[in-house]
């Protein structure tokens, strides 16, 4: 605020006070008066005078008002719930045992997704807490920013802590041009920064794949190698046979990474010339052996990696610890259209082919390559064959197909089928290996899957282990189990009598863990109800 007092007097007083009256006697000090007392008297009068005379300052430059948020407001109970979810910030309390109460912060992603699905706008006063939460957790950002709406971007321009919100919006807050205006598109493509050009290409590719490719072709020859790689990668979206000539040409690129990416994209097109060349090479390596009692497969891995193979994206140098012939074989099979094998191997179905014995320990190599091919080509039938029956003994054992590969194979199947397979797996193998597989299942879990998980938890408890051995699955169950299942859990809440072979105190901990599960499910049901409104 501005003071209206004459600054000269006051500054004189301050100077005198700083130096001390011993060094500088105030000139206005009456004779006989004690100098420090006179100084304090004068300063007291001046202080009160200055304070009483304070006047408002001139306003600084005003920011543009925020764009109004036209979305409907949350129902009141849902707004209260949001405040509570945001109160539970990580690091605001002691860790340790998790107790019976739900982990509210873990429910925030679901809450945000549900609120966004219904098109609600955020109450403005919670925006700071919401932005702080999103700042600490990158996985929350997309949903949090969508919910937060235009005012959050307005705030982010004023607070450097929230700059991430500006970065997260496409184009760093600068909107993309009208994609229908070729002039603007061309200008941004020619003159924009790298990030802007990637965003532009991705946006066009999502709507009109052909236009995006043609745009890329216009400047392809002059791009830097790193940029070519990123641009090429954005063609993954909406990949069709029409892209083949361009990709085929990119196989001759100067950069090895660009060549490899082009080859990978081409091999995902089953009718491409590259896929056909790979099929010829791979087929030469695998054959049905009819000499034994039952037909089996014999594998003859390639003896060399010729320039033609290298041109088609096969990496000649094997990583340390792998034989180079099996390394080449893996790459050939992986890039071969799976349809090839049915013709090549006597018209057998995928299931029959997978069941064939493989000579000389080539089985795991061959099956692993087929898994990668099935995932790359999104081939559900082969995925099913390679996954096998969930209850087969080897499904959980050290079989040919690892859990990570299984999770990827599952992602090529439909949601219902996926849930059913994982349910079968859990029923047969228990929970210890199921975490990764549960992660690819749709939320909330389908009824059979939910039941399988609850049953398996129950079995684990009866087996006498501690619940924290299953904390990963428990956490997932809290977030993913259908709230309608809560009532099925009531029987598990009691503390059972301790049996002799059980771990000491385990019963109590299990009851606690199930209680938290039920509480969380009830809470999720309440959250969903509140968002539905009255």
């Amino acid at each position: 605020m501005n003071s209206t007092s004459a600054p000269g007097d006051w500054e004189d007083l301050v100077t005198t006070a700083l130096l001390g009256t011993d060094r500088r006697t105030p000139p206005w000090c009456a004779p006989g008066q004690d100098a420090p007392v006179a100084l304090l008297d004068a300063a007291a009068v001046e202080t009160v005078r200055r304070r009483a005379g304070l006047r408002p300052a001139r306003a600084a430059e005003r920011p543009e008002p925020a764009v109004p948020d036209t979305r409907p407001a949350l129902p009141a109970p849902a707004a209260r719930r949001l405040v509570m979810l945001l109160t539970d910030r990580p690091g605001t309390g002691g860790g340790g045992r998790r107790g019976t109460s739900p982990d509210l912060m873990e429910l925030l992603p679901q809450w945000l997704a549900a609120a966004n699905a219904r098109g609600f706008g955020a109450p403005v006063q919670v925006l700071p807490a919401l932005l702080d939460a999103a700042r600490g957790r990158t996985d929350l950002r997309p949903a949090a920013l969508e919910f937060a709406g235009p005012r959050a971007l307005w705030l982010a321009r004023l607070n450097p802590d929230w700059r991430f919100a500006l970065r997260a919006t496409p184009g760093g807050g600068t909107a993309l041009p009208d994609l229908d205006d070729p002039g603007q598109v061309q200008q941004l493509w020619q003159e924009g920064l790298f990030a802007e050009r990637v965003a532009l290409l991705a946006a066009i590719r999502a709507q009109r794949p052909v236009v995006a490719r043609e745009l890329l072709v216009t400047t392809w020859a002059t791009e830097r190698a790193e940029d070519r790689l990123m641009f090429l990668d954005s063609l993954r979206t909406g990949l069709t046979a029409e892209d083949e000539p361009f990709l085929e040409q990119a196989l001759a690129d100067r950069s090895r990474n660009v060549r490899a990416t082009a080859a990978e994209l081409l091999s995902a097109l089953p009718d491409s010339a590259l896929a056909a060349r790979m099929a010829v090479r791979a087929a030469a390596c695998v054959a049905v052996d009819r000499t034994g009692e039952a037909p089996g497969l014999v594998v003859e891995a390639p003896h060399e990696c010729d320039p033609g193979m290298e041109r088609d994206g096969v990496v000649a140098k094997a990583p340390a610890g792998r034989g180079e012939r099996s390394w080449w074989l893996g790459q050939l099979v992986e890039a071969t259209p799976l349809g090839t094998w049915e013709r090549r191997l006597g018209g057998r179905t995928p299931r029959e082919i997978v069941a064939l014995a493989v000579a000389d320990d080539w089985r795991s190599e061959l099956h692993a390559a087929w898994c990668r091919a099935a995932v790359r080509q999104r081939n559900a039938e082969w995925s099913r064959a390679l996954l096998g029956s969930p209850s087969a003994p080897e499904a959980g054992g050290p079989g040919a197909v690892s859990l990570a590969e299984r999770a990827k194979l599952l992602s090529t199947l439909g949601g219902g089928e996926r849930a059913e397979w994982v349910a079968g797996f859990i029923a047969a193998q228990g929970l210890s290996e199921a975490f990764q597989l549960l992660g690819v299942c749709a939320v909330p879990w389908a009824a059979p899957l939910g039941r399988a998980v609850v049953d398996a938890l129950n079995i684990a408890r009866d087996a006498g282990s501690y619940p924290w051995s299953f904390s990963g699955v428990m956490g997932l169950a809290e977030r993913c189990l259908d709230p309608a299942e809560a009532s099925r859990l009531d029987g598990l809440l009691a503390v059972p009598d301790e049996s002799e072979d059980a771990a000491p105190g385990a019963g109590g901990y299990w009851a606690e863990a199930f209680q938290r599960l039920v509480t969380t499910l009830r809470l999720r049901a309440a959250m969903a109800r509140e968002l539905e409104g009255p």
Partner: protein
Amino acid sequence: MTQQGVRWTADQVLALAPDAASRKAGSKLGAAGPWSEAGSSDEGTVWGLCKGSGSKPYQTVVDIADTAGPAYKCSCPSRKFPCKHALGLLLLWAGEDDAVPAGQAPDWAEQWLAGRRKRTEEKRAADASGSPAAADPEAARRRAERRAERITAGAGELEQRLTDLLRTGLASAEQAGYGVWEETAARMVDAQAPGLAARARELGAIPSSGPGWPVRLLEECALLHLLDRAWLRRERLPDGLAATVRSRIGLPGSADGPPLRDSWLVLAQYDTADSKLTTRRIWLHGTASDRTSLLLSYGAAGRAPELALPVGLALEAEVSAFPGAGQLRAALGEQFAPPGPTTARPPGVTTEQAAVRYGEALRDDPWLDAVPVTLDRVVPIPDGDSWQLADADTESALPLTPTARSRPGLWRLVALSGGAPVKVFGELGHRGFTPLTAWPDATGEPVSLC
């Protein structure tokens, strides 16, 4: 007004928590899961059983209708007050309509309530019949005289310290550190002048408070000198000013002003804590009388003060002022109804009028650091590293205090405004404006900024 209409918001409940950990623990218990047999009555009682880690659930009762603020009882061993169970129960009650149905209190809750009501009745009866065993007035007078003598001696000593400081110069204070002033403060505590002690202690911190400290140190020295002098000549001051001086020195007063009955809107509630004491300030605005009053409530360190009034509610009550000219501090007397929702808002002024109001208040109390004001139609504006509240329609603006700039409440205010005018209640003083509560321009609930 029935209790069912007076559900609190989650924010209001969380404001009761003694610390952040309790707030978090309470939020977790604010869901139906661990609770059973929860219920509430029309008289403003909420109860429930909370499953804890033991086999026996905790019995939790909260009486929100109590005229002296909510009262809690929980069978848990926590020393936090209110404990997380009480907070969780209130959150449950605030949040879900069907989780806490209306009903008849169970025996264990009823017993506690009956005991409480009985004690309250007895206390009221005792108050009405005058203070028990009224002390010997002659002895009281002698005690007061002895204390006044000690304070006079202390004030003289303090004067000596101040004149010594100015004789050698403030520049020497920078090297001396605050040990000297700590010692002086301890002497003032011995002299039974806590007001002087607090001011002396603050002097010690000023030299390390950043650029411009000589000005602030001179100001505070001068005001302390003024207070010393006022005490030494208190007989020659007008009554009102003399009472102000006594309360600034730290002599206890009693709220013997005439009780004023009004519908009091709770404007703001915030706590400040030092190592020994938590002080809670609650600002009230009388809807009919247009008076602003301050309630103070204290708690030992780590415990929330007892009195808690949720911001935005209004209570029908009597309030009595403490003595002193321009004194805003008051005591809450009889409450006629529990706090309830209201659409009332305090009338606001422009930034220019607010600055004038502080100047005028200094006439009654020159030691006043800030006055409560409500600003109408102001917009928060960034100003370099700092912020201002500017009138929407003119070019004048009040700067925010340095402490207000670093508080999270600032961003709630900025978010609420979005560049548009809002109504803001806060404290305005020589350091600037501290926003405490804001209302959106047209309609809507108040947002607490503390």
